[in-house]
């Protein structure tokens, strides 16, 4: 499970960074989103991976993190997802405005001279 998760985070992060460095605004926004997903999975994994742990306090179980999944990273991820979603929406609007002003989708508003 650790390997799968690590590969998933690595792939998302790698694709995200590569796309973010591309010259088209659409590629940049997809890159930022992928990077965001990778980061969210990473935060989640920082609560340690466990199978079949209780999510909410159950009677009879001692109140230590060995018996439960760590609720803190889940709370953090939830906040990060909401903020990331809002920022992506805002970025999309700016992207459209940019296209309206310059008539192309280059991040600098003008095509590179080849």
């Amino acid at each position, binding site marked *: 499970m650790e390997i799968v998760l690590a590969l998933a985070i690595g792939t998302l992060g790698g694709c995200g960074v590569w796309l973010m460095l591309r010259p088209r605004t659409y590629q940049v926004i997809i890159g930022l989103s992928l990077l965001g997903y990778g980061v969210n999975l990473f935060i989640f994994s920082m609560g340690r991976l466990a199978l079949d742990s209780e999510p909410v306090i159950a009677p009879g179980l001692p109140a230590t993190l060995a018996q439960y999944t760590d609720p803190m990273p889940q709370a*953090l991820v939830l906040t990060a997802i909401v903020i990331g979603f809002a920022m992506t929406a805002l970025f999309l609007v700016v992207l459209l405005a940019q296209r309206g002003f310059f008539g192309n989708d280059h991040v600098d508003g003008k095509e590179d001279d080849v």
Partner: protein
Amino acid sequence: MARRTTYEHAGPTQVLMLPLGGAARSAWGAQMTSAWHSALAAAPQLMIAPLLLPLLTACVLLLLSERRHRLKGALGLAAAAANLGLAVLLLAWTLQGPEASAYGVYLPSNWQAPFGIVLVLDRLSALMLVLAGLVALMALLFAQARWHKAGAHFQVLFQLQIMGLNGAFLTGDLFNLFVFFEVMLAASYGLLLHGSGPARVRSGLHYIAINLAASSLFLLGAALIYGVTGTLNMAYLAARIPQVAAADRPLLHAGCAILAVAFLAKAAMWPLNFWLVPAYASASTPSSAVFALLTKVGVYVLLRLSTLLFSAGAGASAGFGNSWLVLGGMATLAFGTLGMLGAQRPARLAGFAVIVSSGTLMAMLGLARPELTAGALVYLPGSTLAVAAFFLLAELLDRSRDPDPAAMRAPEDEEDRLPFALAEQELHAQTNLDDDEQALVGRAIPASTAWLGVAFICCALLLAGLPPLSGFIGKLAMLAALLDTPDAAGTVPGLHWSLLGLIIVSGLCALVALSRVGMRFFWAPVGRGAPRLRVYEYAPIALLVAACVVLTVQAEAVVRFANATAMALHRPQAYIDAVLGARPVPTATHGDRPNPIAQPMLQGPR
């Protein structure tokens, strides 16, 4: 008039210097003094107010129609003024008594730290709150002239910006710092795009992309730190860092370094600062004045975390990252200085002045000595106010060359062209003649141009660090501290000498750049009408300069305050004890709660 405004302004700012020094003495004054004392006593309960007030104001403003801009403007100004008043009250509270380490701790959820979130007030955060409150109020006043009508929801975004700034200064844990960073950034995206136009949209796109990437790094760093230490509360983190196992320490350092990159991008360290100048120069003017504060948030967080987490008591982590901060700060300072020399438009000049100020601060803080930190803290307020004033002034200068209403929009030329076609003009022997061949010598300049000139000279003196204004005192404090802190061998290290040289050269270059721009605007023989000055637009600049004059007159108190603050910052144990020792208000179910520190739960998942 100018004299009266200066005097009026001296009231609240004197409180900044001397605890209760400005209290009046008449019977009415006695009443006011007692009201002030009761407000001071309630100050720890008012710590949440700098967050709630702008948030609620923003909610109310959102409900009002855009057409009622006069009412919206009045509400926004009232809230910003109340925010400044609150900040001054909180600062006065931290100055009470002889103890340098007065900490206000507020538990918003009534759970003990590190379980619940926590707001912490100390002298540094109170100082930053006052600075942010003052600059925000002045920028909002400036915006009343016309900027608030240039697009939708300006007032709402502005209040949220104030809330984000206040929250970043007050929060005591890393995740809320992220949240307030995002509040602040989201508002700044809106403010940067306010007024629209190609230049704003293009630089806004870059600004948003950079900040979204930096936010991802922030989250990565915070997650790594949580994974290693099991907490995000800054005080508890500081207490736990010495106990981190040797095998985990590289991971912790990696987390802190990733986190720091996010703040360094915000604080505009070279080479993470190429976005700054186009964005700040193209933003609407009141927004760019407030943006001058955003870089200071980055500097504030770097100072807070480096003194708290990597103090001398942090074991193997002591002093982590400081050399990066020094060298990066010096590179930033050099970059900003060269940029100032190259900039043609005043707004871009102001953008590079932000970078210079931030580079100076980072280099001084990276040296991590209380004396040097104190020098940086003397420099910080004056430099922030001066840059903000210069941003406001830059628009008036820009406008005076071009009375065309189209100039209200963001300038289309990112190319940073010369403001006048001076280069193409033929300057012959009789240059001192105007277009009608009348002698220019001895002709009275228009009053508005004269006032602009006075403000420009004050800003230039402040930014270049020349006497008699506070910029000089700030630089003097830093240079004296650099020479007064020998290393163990008793000699002043070469790093100190090079930073000293860099600061002096940077001041000289700033002076050259500013006088060049000033000559071009005020002395160039180019026919143009006198600019129209409105009170709304000139008063904020005059008040910001007046605040710097007060800082100059009260220099001794400022230096004393900076010394006490720096000493407290470099001995973080009192901060840690204050935060972890804060107890929630007893409630009905209070007895059932576990004692967080004693619980094995917090020993982390390992």
